[in-house]
């Protein structure tokens, strides 16, 4: 942490940072467990809201402000609303899903979960982590890096990169999304001949 040399206030800053982080982590993980444990599919969708908010908070905490707000805008405002909408429109029966899950399925899922968790912990431990500031502080040559350090946020930098160095992937993704939209519209479209497509 860059606040290490700040004496007593620095220590407070570190612990404060930790408090915020653990609060956000709990906010992400507790609802995630809720999604798995809950028996009611609508409750699952509302638990998902908590997880998505927690992840957005973690992004903001890591100074990825644009990403964090996009998370709220797209995943909560768009996807979670659509999810709820879909569930409420299509389900007529009581929304219990647990009965279908067999015991071996749970056991295999737990095994897989443990393996993935061990792998993730290992790779997190092996990686050398930097904050954006630590990473760019020695050089400070790049104007966009300076903008991040000065607290001007990541939006301008992201925008510049997306429309210069990474324009090809960016455009390919946009075309992919367009194709998906057209495809969805085609599938949902009523056949002009009268019958359903």
């Amino acid at each position, binding site marked *: 942490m860059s606040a290490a040399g700040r004496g007593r206030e620095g220590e407070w800053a570190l612990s404060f940072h930790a408090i915020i982080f653990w609060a956000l982590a709990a906010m992400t993980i507790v609802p995630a467990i809720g999604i798995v444990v809950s028996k009611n599919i609508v409750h699952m969708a509302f638990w998902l809201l908590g997880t998505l908010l927690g992840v957005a908070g973690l992004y903001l905490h890591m100074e990825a402000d644009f990403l964090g707000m996009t998370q709220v805008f797209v995943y*909560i405002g768009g996807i979670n609303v659509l999810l709820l909408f879909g569930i409420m429109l299509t389900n007529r029966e009581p929304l219990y899903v647990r009965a279908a899950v067999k015991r071996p399925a749970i056991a295999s899922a737990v095994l897989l979960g443990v393996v993935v968790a061990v792998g993730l912990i290992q790779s997190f431990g092996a990686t050398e982590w930097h904050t954006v500031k630590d990473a760019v502080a020695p050089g400070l040559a790049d104007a966009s890096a300076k903008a991040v350090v000065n607290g001007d946020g990541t939006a301008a930098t992201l925008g510049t990169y997306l429309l210069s160095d990474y324009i090809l992937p960016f455009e390919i993704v946009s075309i992919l999304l367009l194709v998906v939209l057209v495809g969805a519209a085609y599938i949902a479209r009523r056949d002009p001949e009268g019958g359903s497509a």
Partner: protein
Amino acid sequence: MESYFTFVSSVLGFEPTSLLGFVGAIAVWAVPITAFVSVVGLVSIWLERKISAHIQCRVGPMEVGPHGALQTLADGIKLLGKEDLVPAQADRILFGLAPMLVFASTFVGFAVIPFSQKAVIADLNLGIFFLAAVGSLEAIGVVMAGWSSNNKWSLFGAIRAATQVVSYEIPLGLSLLAVVVVAGSMSLNDITQAQSGWVWNWFLFRNPFMWAVFLIYFIASLAECKRAPFDLPEAESELVSGFHTEYSGMRFAIFFLAEYGAMYIVSAIAVVLFFGGWYTGIPFLDHISGSIGGTTGVVVENLIGAGTIIVKSFLLICVQMWIRWTLPRIRLDQMMDLCLKYLLPFSLVLLVAVSLWQAFQGPIDGGNSVMGMIMLAATVASLIWMRRLAGRVSKASALRRELPVVKTGL
């Protein structure tokens, strides 16, 4: 991590040295905002009653206070004393959580709404994006309220609210984006400062497309606030009270407060984006600290700013009310038609037009050059041409649908 530090200390003017200090600092800002939201609620509910009454040739509340000004306060006290009812089969936790979520999403928006150059709690450089993002949280709260009430009218209201949010959100976002293109920033402070000077510097008059952008924003913001003609989630004449049918007492009051708070927020955003924010449009008044000088000048300037933006926002709120009491509610399919078939294409075209205007006018110094003028004329002409072609295509497809005999010919 540093961002919290800088954020908190820049807001407070000093660095809090403990967690308690931090929490206290948050409270220092939360209390005035809560008070402001409540006052906005009180004033706009009174305005709504008076405006609706005068539109319907009545006088409205007259008994409590001068011209019934304290009627809302009396009603608020009455709501406080009411029993807190929860339907027996309702989902109690979600039922209780829903009004909080709705209120919180509105409340958080006030953190970035500027009152004057200095009086803004957090001048985020993503301010406008932040407002759009937290605005969408409200819809989830409404869906939660409707579903957890375990009442079919509430559920219908919830489904309508979800339908509405996916319909209006895209034109709303695109119209915000058009303004961001003109301003070159997403910070509400920067956007306002780009409009300083005389009235014609306001973004509404910046280029010929901004009027249309404002109209689209305004229509979509009516839908965001669930105001008539988009009050489908409540629809008193169809769904009893829609998503808040089962709510009583303070929970109901919180929904109402959030609705009026949201009206203020969308109006304040419109003022910041199109009507010059806290600027009066008269340079002398806006920079009065230059002529008065000292702390007094700064205070007077900021007070004028705050008064200006609040008055402008309330004027827009009055327009919203005027629309509510003079237009009938549209149907759900009409709402989707309007948002997805008209507002969405128009806002896309406007975004392109505004961007082209900026591209041709910006670097060429006021658009004086012949090249800039030609390109602008070509832009407008091509847009009109495209519109005509689109009209022809839709006419042809309509013909094809109505007369299947012609199918072989076409």
